[in-house]
């Protein structure tokens, strides 16, 4: 094997950086949608490398559901400051008031669906023509079908039957006024690739990705953290367990994993030996129907 050889992580990194640079060059007002999870933290790291020694030429935008883990918010603010990026936060809470939307009810009232409204309003407010997201194709079947440059119409809708051919590494970001493009630079990364890259690059993560003690209740075999947003029923038993998070979303729809893994090596070992997918293990809301993600994307969701 020659010295001029990239291993798979280096190849994925090179591809992602190339995509970031295409975004910066092709769009007038791009934004990076930052959720606070490991995927968007990895995105920020890649963006930093793509434009070094310059700064990241677009803002980080957080659509704040109001149901976040406080640790993730602290980390978000720290990271934006660290990379010297503009951070724009728009709150689902405000959209609910302005548009008098109905809050979902129940034990775990997820605002996941309502996020789309805030996202579309934010795109409109700032006239973003491109939103960069950290979705990966290995996460879910509908995502496995989406292009890296995914054109959305004026309503933010994805039309899976009208996707542009995407040939070689040539990305066509031309759009009409009012449309926008969702770009997914880490489409081809798997969960394990992300973790291995985080270890290789020594990327910092919010503390909840590592083992810690937390009050949880059990719901259909999943552990949900107690918080002000969760409404336990009378027969729920609240226990304290050693847990970590495999993904970080809303407190109402992200489940914890019982774990004592407190270092990256330990976390990666656990993920290698797990028998359940990331979504299956940690998302409480996604198990509803097989087409849940496709339907949401068609409505403007990421």
């Amino acid at each position: 094997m020659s010295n001029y050889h990239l291993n798979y992580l280096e190849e994925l990194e090179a591809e992602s950086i190339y995509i970031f640079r295409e975004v910066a060059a092709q769009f007038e007002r791009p934004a990076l949608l930052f959720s606070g999870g490991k995927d968007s933290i990895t995105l920020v790291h890649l963006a930093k490398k793509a434009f070094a020694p310059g700064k990241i030429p677009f803002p980080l935008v957080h659509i704040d559901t109001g149901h976040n883990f406080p640790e993730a918010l602290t980390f978000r603010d720290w990271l934006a400051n660290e990379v010297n990026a503009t951070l724009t936060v728009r709150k689902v809470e405000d959209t609910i008031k302005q548009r008098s939307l109905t809050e979902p009810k129940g034990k775990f009232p997820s605002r996941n669906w309502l996020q789309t409204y805030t996202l579309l309003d934010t795109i409109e407010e700032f006239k973003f023509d491109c939103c960069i997201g950290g979705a990966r194709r290995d996460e879910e079947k509908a995502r496995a079908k989406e292009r890296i440059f995914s054109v959305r119409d004026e309503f933010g809708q994805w039309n899976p039957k009208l996707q542009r051919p995407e040939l070689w590494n040539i990305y066509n970001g031309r759009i009409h006024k009012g449309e926008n493009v969702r770009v997914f630079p880490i489409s081809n990364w798997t969960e394990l690739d992300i973790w291995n890259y985080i270890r290789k690059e020594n990327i910092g993560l919010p503390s909840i990705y590592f083992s810690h003690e937390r009050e949880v209740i059990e719901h259909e075999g999943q552990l949900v953290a107690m918080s002000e947003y969760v409404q336990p029923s009378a027969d729920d038993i609240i226990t304290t367990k050693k847990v970590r998070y495999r993904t970080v979303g809303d407190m109402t729809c992200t489940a914890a994993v019982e774990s004592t893994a407190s270092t990256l090596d330990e976390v990666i070992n656990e993920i290698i030996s797990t028998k359940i997918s990331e979504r299956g293990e940690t998302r409480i809301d996604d198990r509803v129907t097989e087409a849940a993600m496709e339907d949401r994307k068609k409505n403007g969701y990421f």
Partner: protein
Amino acid sequence: MDLLRFITAGSVDDGKSTLIGRLLYDSKNILIDQLEALEKSTKNRTDGSVDLALLTDGLRAEREQGITIDVAYRYFTTPKRKFIIADAPGHVQYTRNMITGASNANLIIILVDARQGVVEQTRRHSIIASLLKIPHVVVAINKMDLVEYLEDVYNNIVIDYANVAKQLGLKDVIYIPISALNGDNIVDKSTAIDWYMGKPLLELLEEVEIDNDINLTDARFQVQLVIRPQTDDLHDYRGYAGKVISGIYKKGDKVTVLPAGIETTISKLEVGGEEVEEVFAPQSVVIQLADDIDISRGDAITKVDNQPQVNNELEVLLCWLDDKPLVPGNKYYLQHNSRLVRAVVKQIDYKLDVNSLDQQPVEGNVKLNEVVKATIKTAAPLVFDNYEKISANGSGILVDETSNSTVAAVLFK
């Protein structure tokens, strides 16, 4: 560990999705909950088996119709390699989606139904493989279980396909008899096909040599964007960010900036903000030059002693991918990596018959999925290579000015 990208192709129902499902399943890359979902959605099947194709058919319409409409990407890893699979649709009308998946592949698995042999879609996909110069071709003769695993059936198909391969100039084609449904010769060697002396499919995929797929001889680089921080400490910094398309660049190399034709020297190379002595394909890098030259997005930096073609009139092969036909004389945008120029299709010389590869006269407009030889004139010169020499610098797309759709794949002659 390296990365192999491959695509499964072949006619509808030849077993592409099943094969991928089987590869993932037998190499233990399917997790419990995904399997449960699969079993649930297969419940209403009469024979009680799980339908492995449902692992990749991710759209509602696909599951409803039991067909693959668009490419799905799947990922799996063995101790030897990481794989990215593109599961492509077989229908003629979705050929453009198949080309999407094929354009990045190191390897193509062309499935043939043992009962049907080589059919029109086998040829069409083989032609695409040959046009796109996919470096490695595996022909998997599937559904061997339905022909009693007979060696004769296999041999006859191999002879048939060898003719196609010869006609298309496909070299080093590997043949393998399989049953995707039963798992014969997928991960483990089949006992039912004891007459086959070769390796099972997964082993082939793990061992195929892909180091030479990247051209490290002819150095090509195109500027994606100019990095100018304009801060106090980096006041005069001017770096050209882009991907090394092919070849190797070293600090001190004498280079020519094209199409302007100005010579200068590489003064500094960076990867991810760190200075390095040399860079190579397919790294994303930043190049700094000794002289202050006016360079912008789409310009090329090449070595003085190894030059690409520079021209505003191009001989090309066009694969037409849009429902709207190509009207000769119409204007489009031509995008060649990051370079975007206006272009007009001046002349269409002939059409390639996808069955015989014969050159045929074109009557009227060029329609979806047709492949034609054409002459394109661009508003500004392009810096390019023959696709067969450096595919990454020899390809482009046509974009419709009015719909913004990607309407054609362009291969430079």
